[in-house]
């Protein structure tokens, strides 16, 4: 019974979240209409990095955007734009919070302002990961060759 209820809630959440994100993309809400470039210039030097650390984003995303859920190199669809990113955060925390779970924590505006959230966003956008090819990393190459 609980499983069915959870499934229905999850489906409902997905639908509502998707519709909110789409509507936000199309809106002109000034509160989230901040230039990404301007924001980036403002935060990379300090507050975004500190906020990323203080709010424990590194716990799942690593200190460089490589972790349980990767963020580096703009691989996350949620990081498509500031609007989508903010909509995702707020949809989770305020409009339609999911049941308590061990997923990404909720970030309502009362605990993380738009400006703070966007500072984190700009910091995340700086993450670049350039791993070597397996043939270029001595250890990985040795592992492959050792198995032949």
């Amino acid at each position: 019974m609980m499983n069915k209820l959870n499934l229905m809630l999850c489906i409902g959440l997905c639908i509502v979240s998707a519709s909110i994100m789409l509507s936000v993309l199309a809106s002109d809400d000034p509160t989230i209409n901040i230039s990404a470039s301007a924001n980036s210039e403002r935060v990379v030097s300090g507050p975004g990095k500190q906020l990323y650390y203080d709010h424990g984003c590194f716990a799942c995303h690593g200190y460089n955007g490589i972790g349980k859920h990767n963020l580096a190199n703009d691989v996350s669809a949620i990081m498509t734009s500031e609007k989508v990113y903010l909509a995702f955060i707020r949809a989770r925390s305020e409009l339609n919070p999911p049941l308590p779970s061990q997923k990404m924590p909720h970030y309502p505006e009362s605990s993380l302002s738009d400006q703070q959230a966007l500072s984190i966003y700009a910091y995340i956008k700086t993450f670049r990961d350039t791993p070597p090819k397996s043939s270029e990393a001595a250890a990985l190459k040795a592992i492959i060759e050792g198995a032949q």
Partner: protein
Amino acid sequence: MTSKESGIVSGKPPVDAGDQSGAEISADRTGISRRGFIGASVAGGASTVLPAVAFGVGNAAPETPRPVSTPPDAVKMEREVGISVPSVPTATVRRAASDLMVQVLRDLEIEYVALNPGSSFEGLQESLINYGERPNHMPEVISAMHEGAAVDMAHGYGRSEGKPMCALLQGTVGLQNASMAIYQAYHGHTPMIILAGNDENNFLKVHTGEDIAGLVRPYTKWDAQPETLEDTLVALQEAYRQSITPPCAPTLVVLNSEIQKEEAGDLQVPRYSASEVKAISQSQATIIAQTLIQAKNPHISVGRLRSKTGIDNAITLAELVGASVDSMATFGPMSFPQRHALVGTGYDKNYDFHLGLEIAAADVSITGPHLKSVTDRDAAGIGFGWKEDPNLKRRPTPDTLITEDAEASLPLIIHAVESRLTTSISASIKERVKKHSIKNRDNRITSLHKAVEKKRPGWHGTPVSLARLYAELWPMIKDLDWCLASPSNFTGRHHRELWDHDKPYSYLGQYPAAALGYCLGASAGAALAAKNRNRVVINIQGDGDFNFMPGTVWSAVHHQLPMLTIMHNNRAWHMELMYVQYMAGVRGRGTDRAHIGTTFRDPYINYAKLAEGYGMKSEGPISDPNEMVAALQRGVDAVKRGEPYLIDVLTQPR
């Protein structure tokens, strides 16, 4: 079970799960008739026969009122702080009773006794260090900084070697300090012998008790509190036998302080009778052998056996019948070699007969008796993790579950197979082995390529990626005889995909009771096993775990253990940090204070300096992955020389 519970007092054999040997094999998939199997089972296996000995208190209620503890008087306090000396025999002792206790341990080839010195076993300790032509050898005294560390060492040793070492503890206080480690070893099904000194007459009453074994009885398999020297010697042998007899677990002997100091006179060490482990019946072995031979595509799953002999026999059986094999070697010790050519799904996943050896998910599974099925010593009904969750999804019960020991059963099955193989069957099996080997090899290489690709992200990142740490270490140790002693559930488990687990001790597995504080001590215990066997131990050590009993670093240096400790220094109890984050987030109160009580900040801990203080060669903290690679090589070189080494690596959280 206590000596009384086991039936030893009355000569009654212990309750054994062998009563369940009338299990049936599914007729649908095996072609074996249930009736035939039931009939075959009636013969049963050999029963364990244990000697009749009368020991101490067990679970029995005392017949006289227990004395009330009183504060120590001045004389006793003087002794406690070292001003006065413990009692000594009034007459000259020609042949110390504790010498005979050491002789029993020596005869049983107990290599080590880890202890934190106490005031109730000075008799035994003096014998350990001075008795015999080669004193302090077999067993050798290992200095532990905490009773929990002593038991953790025995735990790591037991998982590594499949046989017990001893932990010697001080009365009620030492036993309570060690209780969590004993609990972990019990859930790990690890053989070990715990000795607890008890000074009933001449010492602080708070260190003694009527039945101190009761402190840990729910999570030990057997205990005794012998009241004579003769019974003590037999109890030590029985503790060994019970510990190694499936289901393996810690056992406990409470040693009377005064008995240790007695004159032994002409008393001789009793003859030890080897443990008889209950195997399946000959008829059951025959049926299983026939089914394996008749099957077109048999499959064998191998869980945790008890010794290298068992693993060798499992290999022999798989090769004889040409079965593809599932191994649990990447999950824990004593399983089938991970890179054996037969390990994998094989060329065809449609198996017509599936045999489980210490794994209960097959057509026929030989799993050995479960601790709970053999003895329930939880007189207070505490539960201790045994409570079944009705909503928990469990593996389906196999068609046939045989609760006899798989390792003891293997020789019977092998013999039955060998006597039935014909030239044509052997040729067919040989062809199948060839096809399995090719397919498994191809699958293995494909999986390895995929795994390597997954390890690349964050390769150059700082702090260091754990995937890179495991990847860089492997080429340095792969040609050594190595043992990964540390649980890897908090460090990404990258070894499972990248390393080859081909020895019984390649990986010692997770925390059996999911309790921190185990890793460093268990690694030191594994290093004790490795010390004289030209083996090195790898300990990828969580910082939270390390800080429970860091004094074990000194023990590793003092005893020159070949243990490479690489700190997974993420400066947090990271799992708990995430739990608090979730909770704060769910409640909408912000996650920026989740670090309170979950992290090691202000100040950060410098583990290299800490290790240096204990006398261990060390370096760090290192956050640059390229610097780490060079440090790892220096660490590996050190342990190859038999020296412990610590590298403090600042790592990504997971």
